[in-house]
C-alpha cells in the first residue's frame, strides 16, 4: 500500500511522510475494526492543542504566590490543591509541587522516557524528550541551566528530580522582585512553562528573560 508511493528523492523527509501515511492507514484500519473512535481522537487533539497547557500551571503558581495558605496546601497535597482550581489528571500521575527559594533551585527530568506534568503543563516540548536533555540534566544540571540562560549561584543547591515513577513534578519558581502590586492574573502571565520545569527563572516584568 502507501509505503511505495514516495521514493527516495527527499531522504530527510522520507521518515515523517512515511509516518504520516502509516498513521493514516492505521487509523482507518482501527476505525474499521471498531477499536478507535475518530471523534475521540479529534477531542484529544483539540484538548492538547487548545485547552490544556502551561497557562494552567501558571495559574497554580500565581495562586501560590499570592495566597500562603494555598501554597502550603499545594506543597503538602498537590493533587487536591490543583483540583481546587479545576485541574485534574484523573486517575494516576500524582502531582508533587517543588518550591524554589534563595538557596534551592529545583529542576525536573525524566531520564527513562518522557514523564511530564501534562495535567497542568500540557504535552512536553521536544527538548524535554530529547536525548540531550535526558542524559545531561542529572549529570550536568548547571551546564544545562546555563544553556537555558539560567545562572545559578554556587551557593544554591540544584535539586534535580528524575521522574522514575508515577509522581509528576511542577516547580513553583521564585516570585520576582518588583511584582508586589501585581494581581494574581498579571502574575500568571509572567510564569513560563520553562520556569515550571525548572530550567529557567521567572523574569521580573520588563526584564529580559
Amino acid at each position, binding site marked *: 500500500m502507501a509505503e511505495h508511493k514516495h521514493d527516495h528523492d527527499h531522504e530527510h523527509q522520507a521518515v515523517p511522510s512515511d509516518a504520516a501515511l502509516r498513521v493514516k492507514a492505521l487509523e482507518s484500519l482501527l476505525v474499521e475494526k471498531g477499536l478507535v473512535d475518530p471523534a475521540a*481522537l479529534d477531542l484529544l487533539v483539540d484538548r492538547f492543542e487548545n485547552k490544556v497547557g502551561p497557562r494552567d500551571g501558571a495559574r497554580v503558581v500565581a495562586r501560590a504566590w499570592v495566597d500562603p495558605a494555598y501554597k502550603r496546601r499545594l506543597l503538602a497535597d498537590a493533587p487536591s490543591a490543583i483540583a481546587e482550581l479545576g485541574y485534574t489528571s484523573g486517575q494516576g500521575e500524582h502531582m508533587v509541587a517543588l518550591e524554589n527559594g534563595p538557596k534551592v533551585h529545583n529542576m525536573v527530568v525524566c531520564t527513562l522516557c518522557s514523564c511530564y506534568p501534562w495535567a497542568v503543563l500540557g504535552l512536553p516540548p521536544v527538548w524535554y524528550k530529547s536525548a540531550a536533555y535526558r542524559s545531561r540534566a542529572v549529570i550536568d544540571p548547571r551546564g544545562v541551566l546555563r544553556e537555558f540562560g539560567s545562572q545559578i549561584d554556587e551557593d544554591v543547591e540544584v535539586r534535580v528530580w528524575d521522574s522514575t*515513577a508515577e509522581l509528576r513534578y511542577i516547580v513553583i519558581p521564585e516570585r520576582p522582585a518588583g511584582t508586589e502590586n501585581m494581581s494574581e492574573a498579571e502574575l500568571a502571565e509572567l510564569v513560563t512553562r520553562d520556569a515550571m520545569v525548572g530550567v529557567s527563572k521567572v523574569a521580573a516584568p520588563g526584564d529580559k528573560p
Partner: protein
Amino acid sequence: MNGVHDMGGLQNMGPVEYEKEEPVFHAVWEGRIYGINRSLRALGKWNLDAWRYQIELLPPADYLRMKYYERWLRINEQLLVKHGLVTPEELATGSAEPGSATAIPALTAAVAAQGLGYGIPASQDLAEPQFKIGERVRARNMNPIGHTRLPRYARGKVGAIVRDHGVYAYPDTNAHFQGENRQHVYSVRFGARELWGEQASPLDSVHLDMWDNYLEHA
C-alpha cells in the same frame, strides 16, 4: 533492561535544541497517533509499564534515530499484533480482513470528554513500608533483562529517603503481566558527588522515585 532509553549520565548527546513558539504537534499525524495511543491503552490489553517496555525493546539505533511519535507508531503496531487485535496482513493492507470481529471503541468521544488519566494510580492497599523517612538506603545493584524503572546511574549508590509517596504497582513485574506486587514508592535523595564524583557540586542532589524492591538498608 540496560538499554539506550536509560539515558541519565550519558555524554556526547549534544546541546539541548530549543524551539521557540513550539507547536503542540508538529504535524497532523503526531496528534492522530497520540489519540490512537490513548484510545488503544483504554482497551486495557496492556498496561503503561508494558507499553514502556515495548519502547525499550526497540533496537537501539532505531530508538535514537526515530522521532518521538514515530516510536509511538511503531510500538502501537507491534502491541496490536502481539495482543491479537490486528494481524500483520491487516497492518500491511490497512484494511480489516473479511469476517474479522468488529469491536466497540473503549475510548469514545463521550468518555474522552470526561477527562482521563494516563498513569498508574496509587493504590489504596495497605502495604508495610520497608523504609522510613530519613533512613540511609542503597539502590540495589541489579540488571534485569526485563522492564525496570531503576536507572543504571543510581545502582549501588547510597542516598536517603526524603518522602514516602504511598503504594504503587511494581513496574518490574507489572510490565510483564506478573502481578502488580504493590509496594511503597519513596523520593530518595542522592548527593550529586555520590553519583558523579568530584566533578559535581557538593551542594547538588538528584532525587529519584524508588520502589521498596529497588532499595536495601545502608
